[in-house]
C-alpha cells in the first residue's frame, strides 16, 4: 500500500514538473477546457434560473372565476364553499363587482358619469391561488368549477407557463446534447495534447522502458497531467460562471422597476460545482489514459 502511494506521489510530482516546464501550453489547455465547459454550464445556469422563476410565477398565479351578473348570494356562498374544500386551493379571494368597478375607476381615473356608463359592467369574481403545480389536478379543478351554477367563465392564468416549462424542458434536453458533444470535443482535444506530450517525452519513455519501467509507471504522469487539466479547467469554468452571474444580475437590476426584483440570478449550488469538477477531472483522466496508453504502445525501442 505504501509503495503504491509512493509510486503515485512520484508520478504526481513528475506531472507537476512537466506541466510547469510546459506552462504556456498547459495554461492554454486549461483555458480551452474551462471555456468549453462554460458554454453548456452557462446554458444550464440560465435554464435553472428560468425554471426557478417560472415556478415562482406559477405559485403566485391564480384561477380567475367570473360569475354571472344575476348570481344570487346563496350561489356565491356555495361556490366559495366548494372552492375552499378543494385540496388544490390555497387561497380564495372573492371580489364583488362593486369593489372591482371602484378599483377600475380609480386606476383609470374616471367615474361612471364621465365615461357615460350607466351601470357596472364588471361581474363578481373569485381569484383562487393554487397550492399545486400538477397540471392534471389543475385541469380537473378547472372542469369542476366550470360546471358550477352561476359560473360564467374560468381562466387559468398559468397556460403560458406550461408552454414556458415545456420550452425549458426542450432547452435542457438540447443543452444535454450540446454538453455531450462538447465533452467529446474536449476528450479529443485533451487526448491530442497528451499524445503530443508523449511524443515530446518519447526518448524518456524509450529509455525508461529499456531499464525496466512498466507501462503503468510511464503512463501515470500523463494521467496526472490530464487530472490537472480537468481540475484547472473546472476552476476556470467556476470563475467564469461567477462573473457571468454578476453581469446578469447587474443587467437585471436595471429592470428592477419592471420586474420588481423578481429576476435575481443565483449561482449553481456547491454540489453542482463539485459535479462539474468531477466531470472535468473524469474527462481529463479518460482522455489522457486512452491517448497516452495508445501512444506509449506505439513508441518502439530505439536502436
Amino acid at each position, binding site marked *: 500500500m505504501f*509503495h503504491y502511494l*509512493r*509510486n503515485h506521489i*512520484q508520478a504526481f510530482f513528475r506531472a507537476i514538473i512537466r506541466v510547469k516546464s510546459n506552462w504556456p501550453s498547459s495554461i492554454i489547455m486549461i483555458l480551452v477546457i474551462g471555456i468549453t465547459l462554460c458554454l453548456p454550464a452557462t446554458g444550464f445556469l440560465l435554464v435553472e434560473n428560468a425554471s426557478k422563476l417560472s415556478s415562482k410565477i406559477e405559485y403566485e398565479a391564480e384561477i380567475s372565476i367570473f360569475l354571472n351578473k344575476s348570481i344570487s348570494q346563496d350561489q356565491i356562498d356555495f361556490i366559495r364553499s366548494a372552492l375552499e374544500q378543494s385540496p388544490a386551493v390555497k387561497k380564495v379571494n372573492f371580489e364583488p363587482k362593486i369593489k372591482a368597478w371602484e378599483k377600475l375607476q380609480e386606476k383609470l381615473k374616471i367615474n361612471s358619469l364621465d365615461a357615460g356608463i350607466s351601470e357596472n359592467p364588471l361581474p363578481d369574481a373569485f381569484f383562487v391561488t393554487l397550492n399545486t403545480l400538477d397540471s392534471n389536478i389543475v385541469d380537473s379543478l378547472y372542469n369542476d368549477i366550470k360546471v358550477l351554477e352561476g359560473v360564467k367563465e374560468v381562466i387559468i392564468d398559468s397556460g403560458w407557463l406550461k408552454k414556458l416549462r415545456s420550452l425549458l424542458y426542450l432547452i435542457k434536453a438540447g443543452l444535454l446534447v450540446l454538453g455531450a458533444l462538447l465533452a467529446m470535443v474536449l476528450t479529443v482535444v485533451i487526448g491530442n495534447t497528451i499524445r503530443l506530450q508523449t511524443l515530446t517525452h518519447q*526518448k*524518456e519513455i*524509450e*529509455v*525508461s*522502458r*529499456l*531499464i*525496466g*519501467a*512498466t507501462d503503468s*509507471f510511464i503512463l501515470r504522469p500523463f494521467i496526472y497531467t490530464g487530472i490537472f487539466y480537468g481540475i484547472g479547467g473546472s476552476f476556470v469554468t467556476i470563475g467564469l460562471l461567477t462573473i457571468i452571474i454578476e453581469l446578469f444580475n447587474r443587467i437585471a437590476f436595471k429592470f428592477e422597476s419592471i420586474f420588481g426584483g423578481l429576476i435575481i440570478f443565483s449561482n449553481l449550488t456547491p454540489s453542482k460545482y463539485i459535479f462539474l469538477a468531477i466531470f472535468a477531472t473524469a474527462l481529463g483522466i479518460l482522455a489522457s489514459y486512452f491517448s497516452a496508453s495508445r501512444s506509449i504502445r506505439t513508441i518502439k*525501442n*530505439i*536502436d
Partner: protein
Amino acid sequence: MIKFNSVFKGYPGTKDILQNISFEIDSGELVFVTGSSGAGKSTLLKLISAIESPSAGEIIFDNQNLSDLRTGDMPYLRRKFGMIFQDHKLLFDRTCFENVALPLAINDTTSVDISRRVRAALNKVGLLEKEKLMPITLSGGEQQRLAIARAIVSRPAILIADEPTANLDKKYADEIMSIFYSFQQVGVTVIISSHEAPQSPIQFKEFYLMHGELVKPQDVSLLT
C-alpha cells in the same frame, strides 16, 4: 545463470541475424562478445537483456525460460540488468543526478535512498562534482561514465555494455574498462560487446560472432 540453446533471431523478410547460438554464462564471469560490424553483437545483447525475444530456441535466465514469462513480467526482469548503450541514451533535459536516479525511481526507491545511492554511483565513476550539470556539457568519456553510473546504481546482478569504448580514445577507454573490471571483481557478471577483446588483466570468456554465428566460444586467459 544465462543459457542460450540453439537461439535464432531474425525479422520477417530478412535473413536471420543470429543463427543457432548456444552458450552458457555463469555468475560473476567477464564475457566479451566480439566480431565485426553487423555480426549480430548488439542483437545478442538485446536478447540477453530481454529487450528482444528470439525467433527460435530458448534463453534460460536463472533456471527460468524467458519465453515462459508474460509480457508484463519483462520490465521486472530488465531491472536485474544494468544496461550501457553505445550511444549512452542519456536524457539531455535532466541533470546528471536525475539521469542516474531514473532506474531507482522506476524501482520504487525512497528519495533518501535515491539521493545516497546516486551520489555513491556518481562518486564511483568520478562524476560526483558534476551531479547538477546537464549531460550535454560532459565530454564523450564522461557521458559514458554517467551511463555506467546509471547502470550500476540499482546494483544489478549483470552489467551489459554495448561497445562502451567505441567512440573513446585509449585513455578514456582504459578508464571505462577498469571500472567494468572492478565490478567483475566484486561478483557482478559483466558482458561487453566489442570489435575485439581487449588486453584484460583478468580471466574472461570470449564469444566471437561471424555473420550471425558463434564461431569461437572459448575461455581466454591473458596476462597475469
